[in-house]
């Protein structure tokens, strides 16, 4: 069992209390909703694409510290990335949270600030909180114009 401070690292608490890029994103052309009905976490992810580049990412919603901080950190990390780079980041975060220990260690090396989410892997019941925003992002990127995507869940 890891220490509580491995889960609630300063970065996590900071992003939970002061979420970045919070609120509807002006000029967003992609959008999706995530909802974990069992725990009640809700997140909306907005993306403004400039060609293949994520010009802006925003989110809003309500949930626990882990889900809020994960969404907030995600919006910061993605700004300016290309769609394939965003997908790579998704894979790395996913690997850090759910992969085998060596994959996780490797991923957390390259993830910078996002590595703060790594403590969540020791709390299996909370992994779904950390991954919700990321799956919602994927759904947003896959959204076609004029189509409302079905809400995403990680439960």
């Amino acid at each position, binding site marked *: *069992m890891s220490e*509580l401070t491995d*889960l*609630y690292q300063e970065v996590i*608490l900071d992003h*939970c*209390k002061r979420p970045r890029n919070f609120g509807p994103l002006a000029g967003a052309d992609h959008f999706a909703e995530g909802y974990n009905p*069992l*725990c*009640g976490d*809700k997140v909306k992810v907005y993306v403004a694409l400039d060609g293949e580049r994520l010009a802006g990412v925003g989110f809003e919603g*309500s*949930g*626990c*510290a*882990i889900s809020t901080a994960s969404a907030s950190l995600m919006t910061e990390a993605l700004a300016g990335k290309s769609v394939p780079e965003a997908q790579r980041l998704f894979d790395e975060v996913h690997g850090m949270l759910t992969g085998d220990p060596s994959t996780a260690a490797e991923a957390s090396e390259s993830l910078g600030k996002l590595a703060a989410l790594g403590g969540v892997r020791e*709390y299996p019941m*909370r992994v779904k*909180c950390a991954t919700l925003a990321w799956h919602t992002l994927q759904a947003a990127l896959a959204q076609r114009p004029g189509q409302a995507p079905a809400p995403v869940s990680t439960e």
Partner: protein
Amino acid sequence: MTTTVTTAPALDVAAVRAQFPILRTRVNNKPLVYLDSAASAQKPEPVIEAEARFYRESYANVHRGVHTLSQRATGAYEAARERVARFLGAADPADVVFTRSATEGLNLVAWCFARPRLRPGDEVLLTEMEHHSNIVPWQMVCEATGAKLVVAPVDERGELRMDELDRLLSPKTRVVALVHVSNALGTINPIAEVSRLAHAVGAAVVVDGAQAAPHLRIDVQALGCDFYTFSGHKVYGPTGIGALWGRKELLAEMPPWQGGGDMILHVSFARTDYAPPPARFEAGTPHIVGAVGLAAALDWLDSLPREAVAAHEHDLLAHATESLAAIPGVRLIGTARHKASVLSFLVAGVHAHDVGTILDSEGVAVRAGHHCAQPLMERFGVAATARASFAVYNTREEVDVLTAAVRKAQRLFA
């Protein structure tokens, strides 16, 4: 003339705790403080032992065969039914049906009692504090019959608005289904009064007793209801077993729940004659060992000085209420005048799931979430609460550990 002075025997909590092996567990290097008995209670040695002994010495299928073990198993299973009847104050064990759970009991009543009776325009009256298990089955039968779901509200304290319930009752009301003790708020509902009002308009009363059974003395005659259900695992018994009591004349009119072995008198390909209750509602091999374990749990519970248990549990709830209410930033959800066991709370700035995780790091097990009562959570404008629930084996010291852990959560998120 002699005067007899009776003093209620005190409860020896240490002796009670000693009977629960799991309470010696350490969680995260801390002694386990189990405050999640409303989700499921832990099991005392006599229950664990009764199940193991039954498998070792008496196990066979029931109601089949003439061999010795089958007779012994049948005897134990039917004795368990009598035990449940006694626990509920039921006059006849034949009015007690074994189910998987309280949930199955409610579904059984919805589908076998209400479904054939409901007509378009009829109403089923629930309360705002119902568990999903006492909402969804009624929604399903309403959808199937064209009947309408009507909901009696609760007030700010989490008490049932009896004036509203009375106003909503009408000759269209066919069923009133409500919880005896709310799992999310702890509110104790005045079932006898509800029964009186409901019967005055000809409605049947269905009571979800899952949270009441471990804490209150149940007497279905005095409550005046028509159906009462509870689950074994919340009264210190096994999972997968529960019971439904119903009025004999109502059970007798009801069609079977499931088809299969044990619920029949005679089967041919042309037709089947069904067995009378309770067998009619117990198709297939039942949870024999669960019933035996449940009887052991009820024996164990009734062996404790009942008044002293109630006083102890009341003291725990009062101490916890006072301790948490004294912490700035903590909001209690559910402050009814008559409550049992349950304390739901919010910590400002800390989501209930984070509260749950932080408390767990101190060894404290609480439930965090919507408690399968989403409409109620919406009523109070919250997505989730943390819920501490108390049982006979908890102590004042454990309440103090809870309080300190809540303060720790606040410090971490300060």
